[in-house]
């Protein structure tokens, strides 16, 4: 049984007269001890999924369809009171901006104590755990008596990670923890998470728009676009031989500092707004391989290989598409190559 599972999940945001779907029938699984990376651009629904996992969706959003399961429990259907016993103890959250999530007028020690108290740990033990965890994330425990603004961005992020590990949860949900950090600090955090996975036997749901970081940290990768899973599988395989045109384009839009002459791809158009619903494949408007069927019929999940899947009508033509995708010309505006 997977530690964590999204079973045909759709999440809707409600306004006064309509609802838009940020996540549309997503099914993913995370096994114990592994790291799954959710990759996508703006509007792909990855942050919504992260919040939904811990039952932190805002009041005007809900899981419209499907179930989110953690250790077998259907967390998407649990009352908040029951969810609280799971939250932080069994699954913890590392948000993107530490500055926004730490209370600016409380010391770090106070943040630890407050979090601990909210989930039933006494202050003395909280202090002890805090010092131990700070050392684990390579911070001097003297930081406990500092305030968030007195720490650098990297230090704050590490403090937040330590806070998440307070109860030794088996699952850590990290939402863009390295975005906005300097590249050397990012390297620190990535190394740290990598180590923690080993030493704390942590499973990781890692959300990012940066394929490079996901490539280093995650065993498996799921590529999201407009709230749907385009492709999913073991990271090295998916990146080395992508089966979905979006993955092909996305992977080639990430420059490699060590290969500066490799031409950079830019997918024409832009990710669709949540309100723009389509009956077909959401990527149809930008896909160089688009055919009529793509616009009218939603692709079903096709299994490729042992443990990979892709949502494309023409998944069996993937090798051919892959070759064509390496030609930068086809990603130009109007460059179709069906």
């Amino acid at each position, binding site marked *: 049984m997977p530690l964590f599972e999204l079973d045909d999940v759709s999440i809707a945001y409600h306004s006064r007269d309509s609802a838009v779907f940020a996540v549309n029938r997503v099914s993913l699984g995370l096994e114990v001890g592994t790291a799954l990376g959710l990759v996508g651009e703006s509007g792909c629904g990855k942050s919504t999924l992260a919040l939904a996992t811990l039952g932190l969706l805002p009041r005007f959003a809900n899981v419209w369809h499907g179930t989110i399961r953690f250790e077998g429990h259907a967390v998407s259907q649990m009352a908040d009171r029951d969810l609280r016993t799971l939250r932080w103890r069994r699954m913890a959250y590392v948000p993107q901006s530490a500055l926004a999530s730490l209370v600016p007028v409380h010391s770090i020690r106070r943040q630890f104590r407050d979090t601990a108290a909210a989930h039933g740990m006494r202050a003395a033990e909280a202090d002890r755990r805090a010092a131990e965890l700070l050392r684990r994330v390579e911070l001097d425990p003297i930081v406990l008596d500092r305030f968030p603004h007195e720490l650098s961005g990297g230090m704050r992020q590490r403090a937040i990670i330590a806070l998440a590990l307070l109860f030794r949860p088996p699952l850590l949900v990290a939402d863009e923890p390295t975005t906005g950090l300097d590249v*050397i600090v990012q390297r*620190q955090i990535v190394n740290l998470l990598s180590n923690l996975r080993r030493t704390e036997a942590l499973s990781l749901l890692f959300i990012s728009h940066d*394929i490079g970081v996901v490539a280093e940290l995650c065993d498996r990768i799921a590529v999201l676009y407009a709230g749907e899973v385009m492709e999913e599988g073991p990271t*090295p395989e998916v*990146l080395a031989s992508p089966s979905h045109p979006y993955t092909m384009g996305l992977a080639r839009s990430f420059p490699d500092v060590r290969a*500066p*002459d490799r031409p950079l791809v830019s997918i024409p158009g*832009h*990710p669709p707004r949540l309100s723009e619903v389509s009956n077909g494949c959401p990527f149809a408007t930008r896909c160089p391989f688009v055919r009529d069927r793509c616009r009218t019929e939603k692709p079903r999940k096709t299994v490729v290989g042992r443990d990979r899947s892709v949502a494309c009508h023409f998944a069996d033509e993937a090798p051919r598409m892959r070759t064509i995708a390496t030609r930068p010309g086809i990603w130009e505006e109007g460059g179709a190559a069906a």
Partner: protein
Amino acid sequence: MNDQSSIVSFRDVRKHYLPHAAMFGKAPRVRAVDGVTFSMAPGRVLGIAGESGSGKSTLANLLVGLERATSGEVEVDGQVMSARPNRGLRRTVQMVFQDPFASLNPRFTVGRSVEEPLLIHGLGTTVERHAQAIAALERAELRPGPAFMSRYPHELSGGQRQRVAIARAVVLNPKLLVADEPVSMLDVSVRAGILRLLRRLVTEQHMAMVFITHDLSIVAHICDELAVMYRGRIVERGPVRDVLRAPAHPYTQALIDAVPIPDPAAVARDLPAKVLAGSGDAPAAHGCPFAPRCIHAIPQCEASDPPDFFVAPTHVTACIRSAELRKAAP
């Protein structure tokens, strides 16, 4: 290289800030830019790379006249750039900002925003300005231009907004464009398009460009030369591919090694713990600013400012040990 034909010339420029009288008695100066000297030929693209605290944003502000240098000379197109430059200089240098949404006035239509520089300088009639705005939008690949003129920023995507900002910046045909992290807030799949656009405009309009970024991976796709900044100083400068392939300064090497590789098959080189340990306090007034974190540091590094060492005629670095380290490295 400080001849008259430079489009940009910095001579020992410093920008120091004095924070408010600190609550606890200490008020250390913040040396945002601490002795920067360089010049740039017209029509070239110079990348300035650095992390937060490197001074790159302050450098951008000095270039466009939003701030005035504490000491040293800043010259653009042969004229001194101060905090209140004359009208002519205002037409010569323009800027593209990092946040595409914040850089457009939310109450202005796209057309109004792009026409504003023309209005400020009183150029052309209403009809001419309208036409020039449309032309600028189409040069920025927003077609059809007329359709975009009456749109509002919130109706556009991030990439489109940035194109509007670029159109506004080039409508006056400036000689120098300063781009401050123009793609870092955009989705990855649209970045390359913006970079190509900037590159194309540089060529078509014979502009020079200073491209500021924290992301070393993209510099090779748009810059001719690269300067790496650390703590207010330029620690290395040279042709972009030379600097990336064979960095002459330990900090540049660290930056390159720190970047995650999108290719999972490649093996990452690990960074020494000393480098990872972080910057800590403000650097001392003398000596190499990177010395406290550098694994190759010798006592002399902290004692005196490192001199410029020329790896090649156009590739210079501020590291005493550069020569011997390059000989030793494979």
